């Protein structure tokens, strides 16, 4: 604790540390990231216009104060004009000032309306991506192609300096095609925000919102969940990988092949050998289960029970299947049935029943899982 507390304190004493992010200086910005779609470009121009108005007003206010403080001070024996508020200006300022402010307001509102029309433009899209926010991950569905990507935070060791900006599976989009985003959420409010490519709309459970973009430049674009969604709000970044149209088509057909192959494998009714399942199972176990049950199956008692030598892993297969597929109510054990497919579950269960000297010799088949669902 004290150590952690000291870290910021040292930095406080060493202003040179203020420039710790030198290596990612390329991303260092005073303003919005460079806009790359028609919508964000218009919004950016609008933002610059209103900023300019703000700047001009502030310059005028500052000039007023510098002059007044210099000129109208008692120490310079300036005689106050007690009748000033009764002059023509005092009589009419209540109308003049609002008229001027109204003029500025209407100018801004006018250009805002035309930009808003562009945001609301309903030209048919080439591609629809449904973006679903959940605590705390993003799910992308390419509606036309029926392909789904789940995107979660890339851990610090892998992300390096781009930690909290990068994800394991980025959303891949083609450039120069019109993409329509549908926004919804499965639990609480979220907001999908990638400032360079599209404006944000909230993801609200039960509602569906849409935004659109045409990305004009290839590259990686980053964003974050903008609407507070609880504990993991800071930990659900967004990464969009924009690639050329043909590249995207190739990528998409590959995704479809992978999906078909998986389905075929699961549906083929192939009987899997024990060692095949063990290899697959070890990988999947480490990915999905080892956080709680530990890579060596020792668990973190009492919350996460050990699997090594456990009654469930050594006992009846059907009980084991039930716990993994449906979860154990009242405990931290999640229901994996709707998160993993038959083969994946079969591999994990097989691994759990044979690793760490559990040696039951059971090779649980995808068909067993299917039957147990």
């Amino acid at each position: 604790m004290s150590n952690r507390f000291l870290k910021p304190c040292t930095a406080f004493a060493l202003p040179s540390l203020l420039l710790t992010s030198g290596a990612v200086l390329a991303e260092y910005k005073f303003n919005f990231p460079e806009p790359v779609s028609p919508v964000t470009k218009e919004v950016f121009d609008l933002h610059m216009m209103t900023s300019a108005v703000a700047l001009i007003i502030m310059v005028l206010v500052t000039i007023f104060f510098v002059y007044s403080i210099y000129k109208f001070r008692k120490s310079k024996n300036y005689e106050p004009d007690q009748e000033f508020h009764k002059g023509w200006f005092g009589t009419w300022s209540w109308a003049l000032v609002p008229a001027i402010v109204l003029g500025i307001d209407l100018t801004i509102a006018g250009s805002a309306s035309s930009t808003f029309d562009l945001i609301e433009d309903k030209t048919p899209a080439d591609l629809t991506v449904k973006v679903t926010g959940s605590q705390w991950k993003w799910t992308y569905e390419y509606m036309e192609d029926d392909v789904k990507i789940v995107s979660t935070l890339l851990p610090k060791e892998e992300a390096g300096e781009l930690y909290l900006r990068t994800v394991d599976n980025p959303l891949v989009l083609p450039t120069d095609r019109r993409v329509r985003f549908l926004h919804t959420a499965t639990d609480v409010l979220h907001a999908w925000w990638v400032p360079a490519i599209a404006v944000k709309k909230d993801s609200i459970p039960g509602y569906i919102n849409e935004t659109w973009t045409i990305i004009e430049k290839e590259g990686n674009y980053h964003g974050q969940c903008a609407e507070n969604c609880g504990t993991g709000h800071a930990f659900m970044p967004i990464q969009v990988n924009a690639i050329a149209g043909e590249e995207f088509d190739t990528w998409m057909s590959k995704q479809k092949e992978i999906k078909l192959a998986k389905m075929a494998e699961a549906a083929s009714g192939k009987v899997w050998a024990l060692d095949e399942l063990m290899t697959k199972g070890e990988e999947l176990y480490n990915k999905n289960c080892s956080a709680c049950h530990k890579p060596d199956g020792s668990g973190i008692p009492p919350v996460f029970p050990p699997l090594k030598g456990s009654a469930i892993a050594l006992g009846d297969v059907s009980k084991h299947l039930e716990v993994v597929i449906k979860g154990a109510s009242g405990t931290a054990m999640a229901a994996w049935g709707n998160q993993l497919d038959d083969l994946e579950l079969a591999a994990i269960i097989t691994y759990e029943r044979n690793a760490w000297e559990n040696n039951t010799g059971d090779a649980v088949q995808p068909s067993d899982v299917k039957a147990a669902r």
Partner: protein
Amino acid sequence: MSTTTTHEDHHHAPPTGFGRWLFSTNHKDIGTMYLIFSLIMLFIGGGMAMLIRAELFYPGLQFLEPDLFNNLVTVHAIIMVFGVVMPAAAGMANWMVPLQIGAPDMALPRLNNLSFWLLPAAAILLMLSVIVPFFGGGTPVNTGWTLYPPLSIQSGMGMDLLIFTMHTLGISSILAAINIVTTIINMRAPGLTMMKLPLFIWAWLFTGILLIMIMPALAGGVTMLLFDRHFGTSFFDAAGGGDPVLFQHLFWFFGHPEVYVLLLPSIGVLGVIVPTFSRKPLFGYKSLVWGMGVLLLLGMVVWAHHQYTIGMSVAATNYFMIGTILISIPVGLMLFNFMLTMWRGAMTFETPMLFAIAIIVMFSFAGTTGVMLAVVPADLQYHDTYFVVAHFHYALIPGALFGLYAGVFFWLPKWTGHMYNETLGKIFFWWTTIGFNLTFFPQHFSGLAGMPRRIVDYSVQFVEFNQISSIGAFIFGLSHLLFVYIIIQTVRGGEKAADKPWEGAQIGTPGLEWTLSSPPPFHSFETPPTVK
């Protein structure tokens, strides 16, 4: 202790001991208690802000868990809004409204006592809501002060305590508002017509009316939330036929006018300070009064500009956008009138005036970023980023808090009978103003660069802005120790203050408070003064 009841003989010396405060019906004592309470809460809320900034000094998780961090963000906001600015403004009203209108006390003195003593009760409930999660009370309230469902349905027992806090605070401020409005309408000295009132009184009249309109709506909203959480109703639960977005409408129907509740008293304070130190009557008194009235009306009907991203219809969006931008008219008019009050005046720069000038400059800036935020397409980018955080801190710290500081320095000689130390006052002004700007100016940039609000950990690309911001926050926070020192020093002694310590105090206004001694007697204006 039973001496302090309504039967008390008004010509006796003030009652002594604990009972003087607990059973007080004296507007000055209650005003003092309000001010001390808000000062204590300022340190609690400010301490939370310091923890938040310390956590954000470095990327990564330093010492606050994500839920605790967002709990502090939530409670910081609630303390600052309901525990600091509103009680401080109410305390100032308690002190100054009877003195400025020549009334012997508030219209409903016993109610006044109740509305104050509800506040410590609310503060205890609020602290409990922070503490219960450590003792198995479920998830802390990690929603931000907006308490949006469904996230607020997930929170644990802290949420229920927070809802009760809101209820208690709501009752307290409604009672205070009823009292102040009644006093202003019915207890003015003979001859003191409405259009002769000091601007501070007008400001509090509008604030009181606004509070009475909006606090019950908030109470209703959080009551529904409580029912949804525990009694199986579905006001905001889609599965039972409710709508989570409805809560946002209810909240902001209260939340946006609430901003004016916080701002108006300070605008009133400016309305008496600026002419005093410019030695020249207030410019455009009538348009300031009308401007505040228009602000109140407009403020009530533009709430949904906090919700542009929910996907409203074009018509609704345009309505809320134009309504919001139009708010710049009364606000611009007010600031312009203050500036023209200084124009061709003979200014001196005591601490209250320094604050007044800084407020006008910084609040103008908040106004311009406010117009930027009102513009829907741009807001779809700014929404929920640090740009918004910077904007509302620029509006509320100068607009509300600094206005109250200016009022404290302005009236401290009257309240205590001693002049504060002018040098220390000026040091405090520069210290706090520089600290404030250092804290919040960089946040505009981190917001534009893409940093969302309410995040406990951020990417290294935002580190510079956050470190400057944190350093500024520590400077800003520390300056308040000097503030407390100045106040204690003034209360305990110092140069005797004249009845009218400020040369220009009565220019263009009846200035009844300056006709009394400094400090004023325990019972003042027992015979109403006459205003010509």
